[in-house]
Each structure stands twice: as structure tokens, then as C-alpha cells.
């Protein structure tokens, strides 16, 4: 009974959101659709990121590495193997980001807290420096061009904007939905509960027989794979893979998104990713000093609203339910 009620409650907001997301390209203009598209792509990355921060209690400052690995895998597949199929891009990106997050994870999960943060950061900078320095392979700061891919074997139309805001939008939306469902299953599985136990009390979790380091490593790799998927989807959207997606300040933006939405809730990271994308798009259009604006927002957020947008919504809902 309890389970049914929570399912109903979930459906009560999930269905309208799904309808709104499906209708968006037909209702709002191409610019809005593109911004939303970026938001959804980042949403997948932040969803993965939050498996570490929100559920395992590890703050990674290096998720640009796995996102960038996904994007660069697509770029390399285009440049060196002349591949154009989005499905192959996704498969390749997941494979590469899993390998890289496994390698980095083995080193990083030996540590927690601040050390984990600066280690993930430092390791992500290795990839950045390689992309930056090996310019004859990676194109250096010029980056690598990524043409519009074929989706499910169908070649893209001639109009790139049309392609991105319709076919590609629905393609991303479908993968986004799959990712959300997969993550939902993961965090509600025994494995997800074990991660939360590790987050809440490492010693107790160890005493009940959870192999902490292995669980953390698996979470790390899953998290990296999500970021890799997001990177792969981002690449054709942006049309260019540059070292900017590998640099650690981009990792900082991923953290920012999670905090903005609220990393204590399941959908907080997604809300944060979409909100951040809008915030940044408008801030950049509004002033060259957008970092000043966003930095101030982050400081105020951490000082006054550590639970982010979703925390605020919960507070409001509670107030409405129990009016005084």
C-alpha cells in the first residue's frame, strides 16, 4: 500500500514533466530548446556525479575527465575511424570512460573527503594537459570538429538546427529517460543502500560486511560512465571537442549544478543542471563578468541554502501542507 502511494505520488509530478519535456520543441523556440537540450545532457552527467556526492559521500572535483573522455572519444571516432553512428559513439564513450574511471578510481577511492577531491581534480588535469599538449592528435585548443551523427542508422537532414532541436532532442530525451530510470534502480537497489550506509557511517558499514573500497570503486565507475554518456551526447550538440571540457573548472561547474539543485534529493541534480544551464546562458549574455555573478550565487547558496532548489521546494511544500 505504502509503495503504491509513493509510486502514485512520483507519477503525479513525473507525468506532467515528461509531457512538458516532450512538447517543448513544438512549443518554445529553437534557442530555448537548445538550452534545454544542454541542460538535459548536463543532467545526465550530474546525475552520475551525484551517485558519488549524494549517495556515497565523496566529492569529486574531477568529473570533467569522464565527460571530456566521452566527448573526445566521439571526436576520435569521427577523425580516425570515420564513424558517424551515434549508437557506436555512445558505446565507445561508455567503454573509454569506464576504463579511465576505473584507472583513476583505483587510486582515488583509497581516500575520502578533501584528499579524494584534490586527487580526482589532479588526475583530471592529466587528461586536460594531454589534450592540450598533444595538439597533432587532439587539435590542441582548436579542438576537434564533430559533424552531425546518424541516429539509429538514419542520416541527419541538411538543416542542422532542425536536426538538433527535433530528432536529436528526442534522441537525447530518450537516453536521458533511460539514464534516470537506471539511476533510480541503482540507488534503490541493495547496492545503492549499501552506498548510503557507507556515506552515513563507514565503520558500521564495514562491520556489517560491506566491502567499502570495492563499493566505492563501483560507484565511481558507474558515475564515470554516466558522465561519459553525457560527454558523448554533448559532442555533436556542441560540434567541437576542446580541452575546455576537460579542465577542472568545468568539474567545478558540475559540482555547482548538483549543489544548486540539491544533492540530497534524487532529482535535485537534474533540476540543478537545467537551472544552471539557463543561469549561465543568460549570465554570459548579460555580462562579461558572469563568473562574478555565478560565483556569488554559489557562495550565497552554500551559505544560506545548502539544500539547493529541491530543499527549498520541500520546505515550501511542507509549509503549504501544514499552514499555521
Amino acid at each position: 500500500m505504502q509503495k503504491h502511494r509513493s509510486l502514485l505520488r512520483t507519477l503525479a509530478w513525473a507525468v506532467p514533466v515528461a509531457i512538458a519535456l516532450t512538447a517543448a520543441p513544438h512549443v518554445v523556440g529553437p534557442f530555448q530548446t537548445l538550452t534545454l537540450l544542454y541542460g538535459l545532457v548536463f543532467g545526465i552527467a550530474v546525475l552520475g556525479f551525484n551517485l558519488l556526492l549524494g549517495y556515497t559521500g565523496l566529492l569529486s572535483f574531477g568529473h570533467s575527465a569522464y565527460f571530456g573522455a566521452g566527448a573526445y572519444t566521439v571526436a576520435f571516432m569521427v577523425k580516425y575511424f570515420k564513424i558517424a553512428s551515434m549508437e557506436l559513439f555512445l558505446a565507445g564513450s561508455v567503454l573509454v570512460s569506464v576504463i579511465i574511471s576505473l584507472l583513476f578510481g583505483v587510486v582515488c577511492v583509497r581516500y575520502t573527503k578533501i584528499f579524494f577531491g584534490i586527487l580526482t581534480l589532479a588526475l583530471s588535469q592529466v587528461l586536460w594537459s594531454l589534450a592540450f599538449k598533444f595538439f597533432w592528435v587532439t587539435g590542441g585548443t582548436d579542438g576537434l570538429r564533430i559533424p552531425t551523427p546518424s541516429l539509429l542508422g538514419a542520416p541527419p537532414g541538411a538543416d542542422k538546427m532542425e536536426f538538433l532541436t527535433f530528432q536529436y532532442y528526442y534522441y537525447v530525451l530518450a537516453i536521458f529517460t533511460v539514464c534516470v530510470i537506471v539511476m533510480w534502480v541503482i540507488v534503490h537497489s541493495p547496492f545503492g543502500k549499501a552506498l548510503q550506509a557507507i556515506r552515513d557511517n563507514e565503520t558500521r558499514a564495514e562491520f556489517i560486511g560491506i566491502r567499502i573500497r570495492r563499493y566505492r570503486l563501483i560507484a565511481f565507475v558507474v558515475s564515470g560512465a554516466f558522465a561519459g554518456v553525457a560527454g558523448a551526447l554533448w559532442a555533436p550538440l556542441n560540434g567541437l571537442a576542446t580541452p575546455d571540457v576537460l579542465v577542472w573548472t568545468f568539474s567545478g561547474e558540475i559540482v555547482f549544478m548538483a549543489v544548486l539543485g540539491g544533492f540530497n534529493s534524487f532529482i535535485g541534480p537534474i533540476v540543478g543542471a537545467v537551472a544552471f544551464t539557463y543561469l549561465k546562458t543568460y549570465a554570459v549574455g548579460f555580462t562579461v563578468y558572469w563568473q562574478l555573478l555565478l560565483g556569488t550565487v554559489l557562495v550565497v547558496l552554500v551559505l544560506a541554502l545548502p539544500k539547493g532548489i529541491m530543499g527549498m521546494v520541500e520546505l515550501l511544500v511542507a509549509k503549504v501542507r501544514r499552514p499555521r
Partner: protein
Amino acid sequence: MEFLVIHGLNALLYSSVLFLIAGGLSLIYGVMRIINLAHGNLYAIGAFVTAWTIGTASAAGAPNAVLLLLLPTGAIVAAAVGAILEPTLLRPFYKRPEEYQLLVTFGLLMVLEDLIHLVWGPNPLSAGRVYENFGSITIGGARYPAYNLAVIAVGIIAALFLWAFIYRTRFGIVLRATSQNMRMASALGVNVNRIYIQAFTIGCFMAGLGGAIVVPGQSAVLGMGVDALILSFVVVVIGGLGSLEGAFAGALIVGLVREAGVALFPEVELAVLYLIAAIVLFVRPAGLFGRA
């Protein structure tokens, strides 16, 4: 021979500046257990302030001695910024999880980065006249800029001074006591808030000094702080977070490897540094001089 002398001196030059930045970062961590992601920006502030004051004075026709006296302005301003930031922005975070400290300093990084842009504009600033005034000297058949030797000297003096300060003064004892056990120190009558401001200010002063002495030799550019921060992370990871000896050793290692890298393997120079850091972590998880 010339090759070795020049590259050896360059490595020391680089190590000196890195020690100032990373030493400040490590000192702050050692006392307050926070990592200041905006630390690199304080180095950048030091560089910009010094470049600006010397550039302005130089344009006004100030004599060389005055220019030299203006060199520490960057360090003083960085220290002042630190003294303002610690009680206002960081203090509310000591009792909260460490993640929030990283986040707030990341926000601070974004703000300071753009404030530098706002105040000094997008163009590089330099204080080249001081550098030129020092001229160059010949060592082992190689001509070397005398100013760079002065920077090396400042790095060594700063290291000695800090060592004496922390291990040979009363303030140093209180500082170390606070670092070991903040609650106990507080119970014994140490004013922990004051120690925190002082430690943070000294750390920022060191970063600012690093920026100030670097700027006659090279321009102050936007983004220099973020680059410096990453290298200081490598230094403190190798040397051990919170240890000054570690920062010293780490800065020397990173300086040497970087200089060798620039000369011999420029593409993977940064990757080799991180590889060394990763190996150190595997062998000694707390770093060469860190306490586990």
C-alpha cells in the same frame, strides 16, 4: 655545463615561487584543515597589484629604488584580502562538512577571478623595469638574469624565516598546538579565532609574495592563479598536506621535474608530474612528510 647551470637555476627559481604558493596553501591546511581553492587567485592578486603599482610608479618616473620598495605591495594586499576573507566567509564553515568548504572557496575563486578582470582589465601587466635594472651576471660561462637569483634568495629566506617562525617562536608553538588539537588549545586559553586569522593571513601573504616576485620576470595574466593552484596541489600531494618541510621538498621536486620536462619531454611534462604524485601516494599515502 652551461645547459646544466641555466636549467638548474631555472628549476630553483621555479621551486622558490612554488614553495611560496604551496607553502601558504599547506600552512593554511595544517592549521585550519581547509583547502582554499581560491589560493591561486591570491597569488594572482599579488602579481597584479605589484605589476600595477610598479608600472604606475615607473610611468610617473619614480627612481629604481622606489620601484624595488613597491615590490612587496602585492604580498601586503593579498594578506589584507586574506585577513578580510577568513572571518567573513570561511569562519561559518569550520563546523560544516568539508565539502562545503571546497564549494565556498570554489565560488570565491570564480568571484576573485572576475574581480581581477574587472579591476585590471583583460590585458597582461608587467613590471619589467625592475627585472632589467638587475642586469645579468655570468655563472660558469653562462649569462643569467640577476633578478632570478634574487627570487631564489627570497624563496630560501622565506623558507628559513617560516621555519624559525613556526619552530622557534612562541607564536609558532601556539600555532602548532592549535593545528594539533584545536579544542584543547582553545580550552587552554588560546584565542583560536585569532590564530586562524593570523595563519590564513600569513598563508595569503606567502601566495601574494610569490606573485609579487614573479611579476618583474613575467607578465601578470588572467588565469595564472588557476594554473598555479593546480601545481601547488601536486606539490602538497607529493610533500604531504599541512607540512612545510613537505611543501619545500615537493616544490624542489616539482621545480626540477618541470624544468627537465620543459627541456626534454615538453608534451608529457604535466602528466609526468602527476605520475610522480600518484606514485608517492601509493607508496606513502600521506605524502613524503605528511602525518597519516
